[in-house]
């Protein structure tokens, strides 16, 4: 009896001390962690809507978006994150579109775990820059050669699936946004 009481007591003591210590550490580190996350979003938003000077979080239908304003406080575009499955795992992209929803301003791949050296080239400026000023009247499509139309993206050699995945998840979200607008 005394034995088991000692066991329970020491286990509980360890658990309580651990919880208290962790609560304290969490409290101390939390502001920095939130600030880091906010900063990461901020950097990405300003990158995809380069004219933006400030932004506000808002909703279109059910979808979270960032409304971007230029220095005269005029609406200059929208930014939003899209995510979906690529060749292997999750791909997360920040997309910037113009205020009239007619063209893409820029995109930035935030997270991916595609094949190193092939699929993860979706993170390179060469691939991302292809999205700049794309026409949104038509769906974006992936081609294997040099793009002919202003809604075409050249696929990465050896990584067509990753290239198509990025285009698909961007297309889907834009379609959704257009509907709920």
């Amino acid at each position, binding site marked *: 009896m005394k*034995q088991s009481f000692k066991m329970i007591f*020491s286990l509980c003591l360890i658990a309580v001390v651990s919880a208290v210590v*962790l609560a304290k*550490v969490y409290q101390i580190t939390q502001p920095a962690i939130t600030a880091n996350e906010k900063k990461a979003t901020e950097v990405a938003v300003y990158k995809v809507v380069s004219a933006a000077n400030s932004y506000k979080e808002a909703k279109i239908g059910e979808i979270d978006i960032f409304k971007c304003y230029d220095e005269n406080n005029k609406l200059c575009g929208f930014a939003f994150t899209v995510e979906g499955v690529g060749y292997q795992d999750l791909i997360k992209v920040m997309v910037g579109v113009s205020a009239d929803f007619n063209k893409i301003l820029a995109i930035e791949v935030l997270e991916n775990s595609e094949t190193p050296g092939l699929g993860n080239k979706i993170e390179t400026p060469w691939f991302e820059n292809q999205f700049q000023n794309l026409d949104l009247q038509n769906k974006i499509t992936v081609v294997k050669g040099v793009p002919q139309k202003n809604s075409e993206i050249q696929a990465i050699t050896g990584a067509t699936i990753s290239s198509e995945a990025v285009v698909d998840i961007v297309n889907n979200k834009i379609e959704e946004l257009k509907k709920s607008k």
Partner: protein
Amino acid sequence: MRKINVLFSDFIKGLWQENPIFRLLIGMCPTLAVTSQVKNGLAMGLATTFTLLASSTIISIFRNFIPKEVRIPSYIVIIATFVTIVSLFLKANFPEISKELGPYVPLIIVNCLILGRQEAFASKNPTHRAIADALGMGIGFTLSLIALSSVREVLGMGTLLGHQVIFGNFRPWIIMLTPPGAFLTLGLLLGLVNIINKAVKNRKKKKQ
């Protein structure tokens, strides 16, 4: 003087003779998973060393108060606490590294190296020896990670710590960055360590 000798041998054995990765073959999961770049290998090594050092110290201090029957759960809770602290610290101060190491930070909890040292050493020895042992094992672990990740980063990207080190017509061996490359490199490095060990042993024999 003898006391210092004991401490020194507690420390030094982790570096080669009982090197966790190459000799004892424990703590393999993070070893393989995060060593595609030296930066990540180093960060993982330091995070593990910190957790090992902190848990060994605490457990060795309280070794007489923790009942034998529940020692394993107690150790695991203590280790998990320190790993959570490491994880929060990384997230707050080094968000980039925290993102790169991702899900492998919490896995330090179940790194057999840490629990193994508590069971085999910290729970039986005084605190100063436990600290020496933890430091030696931690540094040995970190050095092994650096060795493995250097090979993989140089061959896989032609860089070391992000600086270009191979010039000219070199085409990076992408396979080194992928899971198969990790297994192959570690297997071959293990063979190399065995060859060196054997050569050292033979030389000692000849001297005698």
